[in-house]
């Protein structure tokens, strides 16, 4: 329990990190550092996108699987680390 806290805190304190969200398989945000509405939005949208990405990867090669998803936009980068049951989402402002 404490390690989780520590890990999440460490991630949050890295340079440029704007927010961290942990989402479960149903899309419920378990842990978040952003406000509720933003969290809900991110959780819902990224869940779908991750599903789509995973299915794409697996369509191309069934033995393959999605390990990480990075979306780089003009303002920041959204990083999604998916798992079977949970998903870790981090929004970071990359070094410019």
């Amino acid at each position: 329990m404490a390690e989780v806290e520590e890990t999440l805190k460490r991630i949050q304190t890295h340079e440029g990190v704007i927010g961290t969200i942990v989402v479960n398989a149903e899309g419920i945000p378990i842990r978040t550092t952003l406000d509720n509405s933003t969290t809900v939005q991110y959780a819902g949208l990224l869940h779908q996108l991750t599903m789509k990405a995973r299915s794409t990867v697996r369509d191309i090669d069934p033995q393959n699987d999605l390990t990480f998803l990075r979306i780089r936009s003009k303002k920041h980068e959204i990083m999604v680390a998916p798992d079977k049951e949970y998903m870790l989402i981090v929004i970071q402002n990359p070094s410019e």
Partner: protein
Amino acid sequence: HVYLLLSKCVGLLYSSASSLPSRCFRCKDIDVLPTLKLSCFPTALTMEIVYVYTKKRNEFGRQCNFSDRSAELHVDILPDPSLAVNFIERDPCDVPIQCTQEMSEHEVNTERFESDTRGINHVEGGWPKDVNPHEMEQTIRFRKKVEKDENYISTVMQLGNNMEHCIKQNNAIDIYREYFEEEEVVEESEVQPSAKTINVFRDPNEVKRTASSLSWHPDGSRKLAVAYSSLEFQKVSKDMSLNSYIWDIENPNKPEMTLKPVSPLVCLEYNPKDCHILVGGSYNGQIAYWDTRKGSQPVEMSTIEHSHRDPVYRVIWLQSKTGTDTFSASTDGQVLWWDIRKMSEPTERLILDPNKKGNLDNALGAISLEFETTMPTKFMVGTEQGLVVSCNRKAKTPAEKIVCMYSGHHGPIYALQRNPFFPKNFLTVADWTARIWSEDIKESSIMWTKYHTAYLSDGSWSPVRPSVFFTIKMDGTLDVWDFLFKQNDPTLSVKVCDEALNSLRVQDNGHFLACGSQLGTVTLLEISSGLCTLQKNEKALATAMFERETKREKILEARHREMRLKERSRSEQSKEEDTKEGDGEESPEELITRIEKDFYEIVEAELKKRDKGEEKKVADAIKSD
């Protein structure tokens, strides 16, 4: 009985029967023959061709007896020309013909695919049934439960590691940074530098003279003025023509205009402000100016008493409001300023006396002049003695006019020009080398070419590229130097002609140049584009090179000065020491006696040696006997 009734249109043929019998006259039947009539009464305006067949009733059903009949012309309707007036003949008639498969068009409409647009309203969801998302307590409890799950802990740890790696990556480098933005694609120009002869203008006279000076027309450089003279001492023949010519570069056969001076012109210059005016300096020291609109004779000439005493080697137009000021230089040691409106007397005079005393006997002969319009108060004079004299025009006293002198050449300086991009550096062409100088360093040039086998007779910077300059030699070759590319050798060396080249002038666009030879042949050359287009960073590189060389010379100069100081101090010291030893030194007479003694001793020793040698020989001779 069949009666054929023919009704015709009016005017052409009359009907053969105008009334219809109801009775047959021949068989006198009482029965009235019903007549089968299929006709209509003739109408006056329409053409109707009608056939009427009549048949007896009791003849119905009888078999038909067909018989052959010869062809009968029933109707012959000839064309009526009067009707043609209402029509226009169409000629030609376009008739399209196509030989293809016949196709038909068929439309089909598929079954409609019904699509619908739907939106989704994201509401927080996914919560299990027993948890009410709006109740804070319940959600918090749920969350806490999940957080205690072991799976959760291990997953988050693992994911966290991955995530951290990527975050650190992001922070380490910006993968989307433009790395090679500043470096542009270097376009390697594969074209070798070359110079191509475009035209050759030969002296039309029998006796050939040297083309001693060239000047391009200031407007568009379509014309070239060439001054012809013979610079060889006392080789002027009676037949030699005095004329100089203006050539149109398109027409090498005949000069466009002739200039008839009193004495052959050694130098000639177009007025950059007024393209019709030329000023020329002649062999006898006079200056004359021409107006091409007024003819071949000079408009005015300077008076002999006030002109130069030697041939005028260079005349340059000055930058002034009136555009009529020039100055000239000659080997008699004077630099004279003229206003062409009043040629009777020079407006100013400068004597190139290195001692600054204005002594004409001491003066240096001037061979070349340099004037840059961007620096109107300064000018430079290249002398016969190999010195470059830098002068200030605005000085109050004649002594102050001569600012400084640059030495380093062994012979007369035939060309002197400032770099159009770096006015502090100037090029001098003399003896067997060309040198580049910096104004600040007076002891030596900062860059120089090697000593060539042939004498260099003229040189010029390229007006478009700061690092390119041209030189011509007495063996007839033209060298193009690019010191950013190669310092030891010219970038391009072209043999223009077999005789010596005397004068060179580059056109303002840097693309064409003309060189004049000893036999009066002027060759127009085109330089390849690589040598006349400004390269990237060229100015910066040239600046860097000039600065580096100037710095080197400065350091050397400083060292020399130091060494000289040391020597001087040492010699002074040794002089002191000498005076200390002055008592022990011999007086001159004692010195002489001593030397005499030494001398006689040596002579005696030598004599003794010889005698011994002879004795030995005699002894040997006796022995052998």
